[in-house]
């Protein structure tokens, strides 16, 4: 029983020993690291945003979320390799394409399963296997390559300390900008428009909304499609950092979930909080120790967080 806690401690000792000559914590490096953490935050935010719509707003447990990210990346790949399209130009297309696929999925699968959360979870897991399989049949398992726009290259150096540069790559900045932009647009759509009001009405009380003349099935379809579209945009933006492959979405699924749940699913701002919390603590711990240890610690912290605040960081306590 106490094997595990001991292992955890001994692992830190072991890692410390395995590391090269102990490095002093360099203020420049740690600043750089925290700034770079913004890049991780951007990716988490981008991948979690779609999920915060499908899960946070609609309460659909969508395990195929990673595959919608993958579909977005492939859309960009296809457009880029066939029409030499700029990555930025492909964003609307990957949004539309994944949203379309999302709408189809909603109509054929998800719609039949409202109110049966576990069934949705299983069906979307099946869907994720199928989407991967189909993409693999079309494009083979070979890695594909997406070019970043040539004008978003290099590093931005806000200042230097003692000749050492504090810097962050423009592409990371672009990611966080895109993420915040999409967050803003989503917040506006959800809280500032009639459609958004209808969405919230439907998710809070389907029957009542229907009585008030809201076309609930249309609202459901649009909302789900929008969430999937956001995942598609995430896929496009991430694609140029890594390579495109059928199984690429799997890497993001667990992290996106943690981001959404840690921040709190009821408020859109929760996903931002979750991303900042997980991204920056990951970056800081990874710098002090290493990446795998950081991941273990952050996941453990998220478990503790859920235990004590299941409603997330940014949700008010509810009656009962």
């Amino acid at each position, binding site marked *: *029983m106490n*094997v*595990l806690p*001991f*292992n*955890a401690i*001994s*692992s830190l000792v*072991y*890692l410390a020993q395995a590391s090269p000559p102990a490095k002093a914590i360099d203020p420049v490096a740690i600043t750089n690291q925290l700034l770079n953490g913004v890049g991780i935050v951007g990716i988490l935010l981008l991948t979690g945003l779609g999920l915060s719509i499908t899960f946070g707003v609609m309460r659909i*447990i969508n395990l195929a979320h990673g595959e919608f990210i993958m579909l977005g990346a492939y859309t960009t790949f296809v457009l880029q390799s066939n029409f030499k399209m700029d990555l930025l130009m492909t964003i609307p297309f990957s949004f539309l394409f994944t949203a379309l696929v999302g709408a189809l999925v909603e109509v054929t*699968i998800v719609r*039949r*399963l409202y109110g*049966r*959360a*576990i*069934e949705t*979870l*299983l*069906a979307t*897991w*099946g*869907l*994720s*296997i*199928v989407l991967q*399989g*189909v993409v*693999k*049949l079309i494009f083979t398992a070979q890695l594909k390559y997406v070019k970043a726009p040539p004008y978003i290259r290099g590093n931005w150096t806000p200042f230097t300390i003692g000749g050492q540069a504090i810097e962050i790559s423009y592409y990371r900045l672009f990611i966080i900008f895109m993420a915040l932009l999409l967050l803003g647009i989503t917040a506006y759509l959800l809280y500032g428009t009639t459609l958004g009001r209808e969405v919230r009405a439907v998710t809070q009380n389907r029957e009542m909304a229907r009585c008030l003349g809201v076309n609930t099935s249309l609202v459901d379809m649009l909302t789900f499609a929008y969430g999937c579209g956001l995942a598609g945009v995430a896929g496009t933006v991430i694609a140029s950092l890594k390579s495109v492959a059928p199984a690429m979405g799997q890497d993001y*699924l*667990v992290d996106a*979930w*943690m981001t959404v*749940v840690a921040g709190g699913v009821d408020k859109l701002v929760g996903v931002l909080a979750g991303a900042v919390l997980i991204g920056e603590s990951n970056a800081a711990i990874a710098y002090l120790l*290493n990446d*795998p*240890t950081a*991941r*273990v610690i952050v*996941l*453990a912290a*998220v*478990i503790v967080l*859920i*235990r*004590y605040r*299941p409603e997330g960081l940014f949700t008010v306590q509810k009656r009962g």
Partner: protein
Amino acid sequence: MAQALGQVQQSSFIPKKWQIINLVALLIFIIFPFVAGTFQTNLMAKLLLFGILGVSLDLVWGFTGILSFAHGVFFTLGGYATAYYLKLNLSAAANNYGGTVPDFMVWNGLKELPWFIAPLQYFPVAIVAMVAIPAGFAYAIGSFIFRSKVSGVYITVITLAIASALTTFFVSQQAYTGGTNGITDVSKLILFGMVVPPIGIYFIILAFATLTIAGSWWLTKSNFGLILRSIKENEKRISYLGYDVASFKIFVWTLSAAIAGICGGLFVPLNNFISPVYLGVAFGTQIVIWVAVGGRGTLFGPVIAAILLGQLQNSVDRITQDWQLIVGIILMVVVLFLPDGLMSLLPNKLFSSSSNKLEKT
């Protein structure tokens, strides 16, 4: 009439037809290794183990309503316990590096056996660890999360995080766990001074499976089972009747982890290795799929599903390399059209006893 009433509630009562079916099924499994080849016997033993692993998940999910993706974790913890035992008992001739320190530890610079692994070279310790480590870990987690207001999908997210974190942890602790490779090159299982042949392992697994199913049947038919089902339907209500829901959840969760641990422990002598691949979310999901396809809340469903899906994958692989696409389609079809799983295809008459009228006594 009072006796008739008793029948329905007593755990020992099993409808006759169903008894016969069970006996026939058991007979088929006993004859199976003598008819089928080495490979099929080995595969069937593995699928039986996976099926029982499904049953262990079914106890917490199908009966109690807690969906867990972490059952692979308990399985793997039990597996590592026996894997260390078998590895540490590898004959000196087979250990390239001599001494008692396993090869993967030598590669990672360990000079001597860590104290927390060393006791596992003794058979009784390993057997106890195989059950106690997963059960103890489950108990710790269970006490932590079930004694709070966390429920439903959040529990599931926590299990996702546990599976993900432990995978990363086991992979990164290469010196102690063998990393991604896990523990390989283990010795054969030796009981009473004899190497257990594959068919012997098959029968050990069959005996374990029979016992687990019988035990689970008895458990779920008891008052305890009734309480589990009430927790699944409405866990708040039952606490106002004076039941401490958390302790019931912790108990069934720990019990289920213990069963999963034994599955893992028996898996190693069968398959000769254990690795973090069984810790991960993907394997955890596979267990969930066996239960979902077989039928939640049925004890035979997960076993039937594990065997059918395993055999299906084995035969479809001969036709197409894209067999997991087909598994995905089947999963979607089952969820959409057969929400209660394969077991719901069986006629209800098999399970229901004739209903009785209640009379005043």
